[in-house]
């Protein structure tokens, strides 16, 4: 009666996303499965493509600055910093020391808040609901500082080409210090909750392993590369915005698995606190803007400037033809390039691991699709 081939195993193709909550937006992954085992994956992306690079060619240098906030929208301050540094390089100017120190503080706050979003959602993906409420509580405080400083919470547009738009508000430094004092014990609290948690450890250990060689071959940077044991961080390797003045360490892992990436990001939040404390204690006096003309017309030329964004190397290649609009803006997005390694990590894993692996790449689809 039953089909004689009924029990034969066949390969199954399963669509995950684009509306799946664990794909962090609109990522669609086509999985080829043998039972629970993943034989291969294919990412279908572009659902959020807004043509940011094309828009850049049709706006002036200043007008394009708010757009970059909307690529990686949980790390908008970092995007803005990278863009401003690139245009400043093209103009051959440097932001004054006061502006640089403030930029460092806001960017490190942003790194913490980006990592907090990652931590909350990653834990949510693999079954722990509570951490999200904790991490968003702390993130809210960081957003409050942004709001007081520049009026916006998420897409801040906090910097201007040449420095800062706004002078600091009264008590900014103290608020940053208070936040650090409050936040550091919270990281310990997260770790008490999670680091030794048997379920989490089981879900993350030896899942999605990328060795240092794999990372280099795929161009993977950021916490993923450091978790594979490569102590490479652009803030140390090619310091910008005065990062060479601050003491901090580059946390690294050993195995390059999801668990090590978790540990690296937790430690990075502590290091960011260290940087913020040092910077808040010595914000120099002085102007907040370099001498930049009202109409920005960089000489003909091209530059590539990159920074250590929370997700990896974020680069801007800007080509100027001497006019007020960039001839070409290329954004080198860490999320996009890191996501390419998904297939390598996923082969041989289980379907449930895919969720953990996507979470650990820490992608933002706004940046993948641009």
């Amino acid at each position, binding site marked *: 009666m039953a089909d004689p081939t009924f029990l034969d195993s066949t390969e199954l193709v399963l669509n995950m996303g684009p509306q799946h909550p664990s794909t962090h937006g609109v990522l669609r992954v086509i999985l080829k499965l043998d039972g629970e085992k993943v034989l291969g994956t294919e990412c279908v992306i572009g659902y959020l493509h807004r043509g940011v690079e094309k828009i850049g060619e049709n706006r002036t240098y200043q007008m394009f600055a708010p757009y970059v906030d909307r690529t990686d929208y949980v790390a908008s301050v970092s995007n803005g910093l990278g863009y401003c540094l690139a245009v400043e390089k093209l103009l051959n100017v440097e932001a004054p020391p006061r502006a640089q120190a403030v930029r460092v503080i806001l960017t490190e706050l942003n790194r913490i808040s980006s990592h907090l979003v990652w931590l909350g959602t990653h834990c949510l993906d693999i079954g722990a609901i509570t951490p999200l409420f904790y991490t968003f509580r702390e993130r809210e405080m960081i957003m409050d500082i942004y709001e007081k400083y520049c009026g916006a919470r998420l897409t801040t547009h906090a910097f201007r080409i040449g420095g800062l738009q706004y002078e600091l508000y009264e008590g900014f430094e103290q608020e940053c210090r208070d936040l650090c004092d409050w936040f550091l014990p919270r990281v310990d609290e997260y770790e008490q909750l999670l680091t030794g948690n048997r379920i989490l450890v089981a879900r993350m250990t030896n899942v999605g392993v990328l060795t240092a060689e794999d990372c280099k071959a795929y161009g993977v940077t950021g916490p993923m590369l450091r978790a594979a044991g490569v102590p490479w961080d652009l803030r140390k390797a090619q310091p910008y915005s005065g990062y060479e003045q601050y003491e901090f360490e580059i946390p690294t892992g050993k195995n390059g698995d999801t668990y090590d990436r978790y540990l690296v990001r937790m430690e990075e939040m502590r290091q960011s606190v260290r940087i913020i404390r040092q910077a808040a204690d010595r914000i120099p006096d002085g102007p907040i803007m370099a001498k930049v003309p009202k*109409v920005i017309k960089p000489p003909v030329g091209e530059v590539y400037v990159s920074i250590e964004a929370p997700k990896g190397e974020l680069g801007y*290649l800007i080509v100027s033809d001497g006019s007020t609009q960039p001839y070409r803006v290329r954004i080198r997005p860490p999320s996009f390039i890191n996501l390419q390694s998904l297939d390598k990590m996923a082969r041989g894993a289980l379907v449930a691991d895919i969720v953990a692996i996507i979470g650990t790449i820490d992608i933002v689809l706004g940046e993948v699709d641009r």
Partner: protein
Amino acid sequence: MAEEGKPVPKPPAAQAGSAAPKAPPQMAATPWESELTQALAARFGDEILEFSSYLGQEFLVARPAAVIPILEWLKTEAGFDYLVDITAVDYPARAERFELFYILYSFARNQRIRIKTNLPDGGRPATATGVHLTANWLEREVFDMFGIEFAGHPDLRRILMPEEWQGHPLRKDYSILTQDQAWVRENLGIESAQ
């Protein structure tokens, strides 16, 4: 224009503009010389057209056919083991319309360089996927946005735009208001996506 008396320091050659209306202003690059350029020049000879540096950023211009051997040589002999990015710039007025960029980084040297090459419309550069795995998606994006086909690429399809989309958005003759009307009508059921 700029505020009186407060111009940004400009390299002299970039001010050609009004004096010579025919010749477009050039990037004020300076020659780049180092042990690395000597070794490259010795190995690749006139396949490399130029070693230059602009604002402290070093780059070389090579013939299209030499790019992949150069990438390979730089990776194995000089430690440039990380391909940061591949992208293109469109200059429709030029005979060799596209400028293709490869950005490389060496962890050992902590050095970043660019390789550039010029291609005519329809030119088919070889794929870099055999040297750097990361080139796969990067070349797909260049193909998607500029219509440059990479010979030997294992999976050359659009990556950000829909697969059936007609046209390549980052070409300069593709205006920001241009869209594939037929695709929009068929797939979104509206007359225009503007």
